[in-house]
């Protein structure tokens, strides 16, 4: 289901597109417009009710047999329309951000840069607003080339990877699936070591090798990432953290189920983690700004790690 604004926007372009293509194929038009055939048929059901006068009979005589689309009274109303400010902004901001993405192939970067200049030119004053919005992706490019090669050749990778939760390096073999960038860039892969889908942050890859073995990730529907790239599973254990106002950032950085307001501006945050002991760095970072309420094992791990660290400073005793 699309909303009325998007549908109107689309139908205005659709009449221009159909005008140049008598007998256009439904499947092809749907592809060109990035919509399903059902959505397109929905639009084609509305268009015959549209025109310059419902009583004068000046309606668009557009019909389809489900395969092809015919427009019987083509007129010159359907000229290509200028880009709206929001359209130019959305397209230009995205294109500029992607053009600046480390790891993009050189040919794609050049094509995008040329396209940006042409769109700016065609959009005229509608393009002005795009200067007010900027997006920067992180430059984490040292391993891009190898991952790109493994993906295009369908080969397995060996990684020496820093596990932040454990604080140490791990070595694993993974079958790469795709690269995702949202702030940081992540490799989504099937980890053969843990036999699970994992997201590997590229800035935590210390060493990489493309192996002479074909990748064989299990076929699965792409995961729903609408809530963010790093999402716990529904049955992962719960972790409860209480923070003061100085620790409210936890709710901004960690995907959580609940954040209840506490008196004095603090929060009680409930989140989930496949392995709560991996949250030890968070527990240590909180300092005075919060504490782990549960599980108690995590609180104890943080406490003993802090005591061990203090011993090295000669601060072991109260």
């Amino acid at each position, binding site marked *: 289901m699309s909303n009325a604004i998007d549908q109107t926007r*689309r139908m205005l372009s659709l009449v221009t597109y159909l005008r140049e293509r008598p007998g256009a194929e439904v499947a092809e038009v749907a592809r060109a417009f990035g919509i399903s055939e059902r959505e397109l048929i929905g639009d084609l059901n509305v268009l015959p009710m549209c025109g310059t006068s419902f009583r004068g009979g000046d309606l668009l005589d557009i019909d389809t047999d489900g395969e092809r689309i015919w427009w019987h009274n083509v007129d010159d109303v359907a000229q290509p*329309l200028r880009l709206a*400010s929001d359209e130019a902004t959305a397209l230009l901001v995205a294109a500029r951000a992607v053009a600046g993405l480390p790891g993009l192939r050189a040919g794609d970067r050049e094509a995008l840069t040329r396209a940006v200049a042409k*769109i700016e030119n065609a959009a005229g004053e509608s393009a002005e607003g795009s200067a007010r919005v900027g997006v920067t992706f992180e430059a984490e490019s040292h391993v891009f080339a190898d991952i790109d090669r493994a993906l295009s050749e369908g080969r397995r990778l060996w990684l020496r990877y*820093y596990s932040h939760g454990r604080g140490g390096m791990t070595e694993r073999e993974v079958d790469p699936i795709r690269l*995702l960038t949202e702030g940081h860039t992540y490799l989504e892969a099937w980890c053969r070591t843990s036999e699970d889908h994992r997201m590997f942050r590229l*800035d935590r890859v210390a060493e990489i090798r493309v192996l002479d073995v074909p990748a064989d990730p299990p076929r699965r529907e792409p995961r729903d990432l609408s809530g963010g*790239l790093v999402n716990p599973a529904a049955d992962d254990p719960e972790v409860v953290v209480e923070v003061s*106002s100085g620790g409210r950032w936890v709710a901004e950085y960690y995907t959580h189920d609940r954040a209840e307001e506490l008196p004095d501006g603090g929060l009680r945050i409930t989140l989930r983690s496949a392995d709560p002991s991996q949250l030890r760095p968070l527990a240590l970072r909180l300092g005075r700004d919060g504490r782990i309420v549960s599980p108690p094992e995590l609180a104890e791990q943080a406490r003993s790690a802090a005591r061990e660290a203090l011993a090295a400073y000669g601060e072991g005793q109260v």
Partner: protein
Amino acid sequence: MAIAKAERLMNLALCLMNTRRPLSKKELRESIEAYREAWQGASEDAFNRMFERDKDDLRELGLVIDVDESALDGELGYLARADRNRLPEIALDAEEAAALTLAARVWQQAKMSGAASGALQKLRAAGVPFAETEGRTALEPRIPAREAAFEPLLTAARDRRPVTFEYRKAGAAAVEQRSVEPWALECWRGHWYLAGYDRDRGDARVFRLSRITGKVRAKNGAFLGTVPEHVDVRATVAKFAGEGATATATVRVRRGAGFPLRTKALNTTRVDEVWDELEIPYGNGLGADLAEFGPDVLVLGPEELRADVVDRLRAVAGLDVEGVRA
């Protein structure tokens, strides 16, 4: 059954684009069935409100609607002139079209994603070639905008409308009402920031969108200050996040541990079987970063950093008389 809004908007657009002379509201009402129904079935007022909203919606979609005050004997006349609404010639080759198609997919926010698809559809309608993008790249950049404040701030910055919102500063216990002239939005490390002129403080400020609580309200009236030519939100935020530091700190890191510290170290020397000594940039927030490593890191200096880390560790170890300030 009421006529669907998309059909009504489409009819209004076709009427306005297809006329050579301005059309009065009455003429439009006679030509568009949905308006006639609203006028007959509800009231003059209901029709007027519907008509005003529809015009605004079409303008959001890029249609330039001229209002002629004199043509129709005292009545306002409306038309969308062809020369003011036509997309200029644009020639994109297949490579450029494919690259744009991929880029347009990065928005994870409904309104921006709809606008980007709409732009592509207009370009396709204008003859830009359609390119298959299947398998072109395995790289999927995504621009999230989950913050509710994103959309109203974007519109307010575009229209240069001042806004008010409740804001909780980092670490603050209470929210404060802020009155801001929004200049620019910037996404950095997956989070959105707003730069603007803070009316109460009489100076430029940067706000993080996730700390805006409640609704963003657009106010009447124009900006009081001038919008700077170039707004560098990123530099301000990066500095706060500890980037661009000029001071350095010396820390010991257990061998095999602390990989993120090693990648940014300016200097690494081996001390013994257990420890390496690293010189690292000392910017905002380093104490908290170092505390995360627990017993794998030992701060040697400067003294204030060492004291900060010890203080944090004491709190976690439960050795603090004050206890947690929660």
